[in-house]
């Protein structure tokens, strides 16, 4: 579970990079005099002393870096060959294939439905809109195992509408669509609110149809937000476990996703296999996030150029 604000703001900070704290900007401000003020002042008033930095580093290392290092080293315990062998085992490969395929479909569904929902929430007006808006955050707040149970109650063996998605790939799709719903909606919504509606009116006044206006004017502005939301949803879907564990069925080569395969390998005491597939999952997530960051940097630069 992560929250929307978190993602929205994470996006903000990444674009700002590690710049200095924004100071209230004043026309009379003494630029060069105040510029160097920040670094030396920390010596006297900040708590961030070398000792503190060291402690923080140690904490982060023990908590995050060492486990991941242990994972990587274990995955290479029998060399590159062993790693490759573990990853290319038919069942492992099948689980990775299912994972990426389902996550990709979910990402596309999110891109379309998320944008549509954001559009309806921003541009449309109907009674109960605020409740619907609050509902969007629920999948982030809800424990994943609860999401699984919740979906089973409708689409599981006791389905009142006789739709049985238990242990099928569509079942996986529904579970992943549920937990990743907020990503695209919450990244597109603020952009859509900020969009300059005069541009759309200008396009309409030039004779563009609604569809043309949307495709040529609105979509390009929304694209970075849609792509970033979709990417985050994909990265999340790749590693998801809790929401698929009950509804997925864990059938090897059919509905077993990578995280389930990893869990199974640990249970039958094959740590190398588990570690190797884990490293692949990690790599996919990293590449996705890295590409997103590159993309965000590029579209930001383009906007700056335009100003």
């Amino acid at each position, binding site marked *: 579970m992560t929250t929307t604000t978190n993602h929205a703001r994470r996006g903000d900070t990444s674009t700002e990079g590690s710049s200095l704290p924004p100071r209230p900007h004043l026309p009379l401000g003494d630029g060069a005099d105040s510029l160097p003020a920040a670094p030396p002042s920390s010596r006297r008033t900040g708590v*961030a002393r070398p000792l503190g930095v060291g402690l923080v580093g140690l904490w982060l290392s023990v908590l995050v870096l060492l486990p991941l290092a242990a994972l990587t080293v274990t995955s290479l315990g029998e060399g590159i060959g062993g790693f490759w062998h573990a990853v290319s085992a038919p069942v492992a490969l099948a689980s990775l294939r299912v994972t990426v395929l389902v996550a990709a479909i979910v990402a596309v569904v999110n891109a379309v439905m998320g944008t549509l929902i954001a559009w309806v929430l921003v541009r449309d007006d109907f009674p109960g809109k605020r409740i619907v808006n609050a509902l969007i955050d629920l999948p982030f707040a809800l*424990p994943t195992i609860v999401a699984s*149970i*919740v979906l089973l109650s409708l689409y599981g063996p006791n389905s009142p509408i006789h739709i049985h998605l238990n242990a099928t790939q569509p079942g996986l799709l529904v579970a992943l669509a549920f937990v990743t719903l907020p990503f695209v909606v919450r990244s597109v919504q603020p952009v859509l609110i900020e969009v300059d509606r005069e541009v759309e009116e200008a396009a309409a006044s030039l004779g563009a149809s609604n569809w043309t206006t949307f495709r040529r004017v609105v979509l390009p502005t929304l694209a970075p937000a849609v792509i970033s939301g979709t990417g985050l949803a994909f*990265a999340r879907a790749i590693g998801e476990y809790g929401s698929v564990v009950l509804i997925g069925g864990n059938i090897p080569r059919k509905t077993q996703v990578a995280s389930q395969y990893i869990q199974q390998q640990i249970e039958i005491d094959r740590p190398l296999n588990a570690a190797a597939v884990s490293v692949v999952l990690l790599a996919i997530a990293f590449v996705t996030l890295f590409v997103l960051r590159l993309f965000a940097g590029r579209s930001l630069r383009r906007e700056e150029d335009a100003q």
Partner: protein
Amino acid sequence: MKTSTTARIGLRTVALGYLVLLIAVPIVLILWRTFGEGVGAFVDSIRTPAAISALNLSLLIVAIVVPLNVVFGVGTALALVRGRFRGRGLVQAVVDLPFAVSPIVVGVSLILLWGVDGWFGGLERLGIKVIFGLPGMVIATLFVTLPFVVREVEPVLHEIGTEQEQAASTLGASTWQTFWRITLPAIRWGLTYGVVLTIARALGEFGAVIMVSSGFPGVSQTLTLLVHSRYIDDHNTYGAYAAATLLMGLAVLTLLGMTALDRKRSKT
């Protein structure tokens, strides 16, 4: 863009239909099934010894994780915002890592580090049981909740700048006095928000915890593990629904808390 009424209603129908089928109906249904047999049955189901022990364990983990995250989260945020040291970029990346790592991968990594055959396996031979014990569940929860406090406090620290702290120091306040009287009150809402997120995630974490827990009912089951085992092992569907409803109630409380905090934060 002026959409025609039919197009607008069409879009609205599609969007609402999707949300209803995906979220609203399943949730209403689970509430229906939980309370369909009366509130009494629900209460009984969440007051079994196993359920109470699961709730206690979940709360115990929260009680350990939150203070640690507050101390180290605020420390990390201070270091990132105020510190000028080499490797800041690396620290930034490490703080974001848990967002990108699958809970299952977290579990595997911890087993490979802290487990009997792991790098720190010696601890277990000394009698300190990390994996399949409470420490393992705490560490797993710490891993997945690491970014929240840091990422909520960091922007606030950026925003308040250093002038208030410098003013306090010129007025005679020591570093600690400045921290307690100036910095901490200034970041309090961001910190609270981070703590709420930490609590919610700590209560709801499943994948990472199930990997490092022995999962014995009444001993090492958290609430989420209870939901899982009731459904899978006990075939107690009703019990699973009831426990899930309890967790859902906690999640809704979290959401409400977050909304209230958001309003509070935007005011100050």
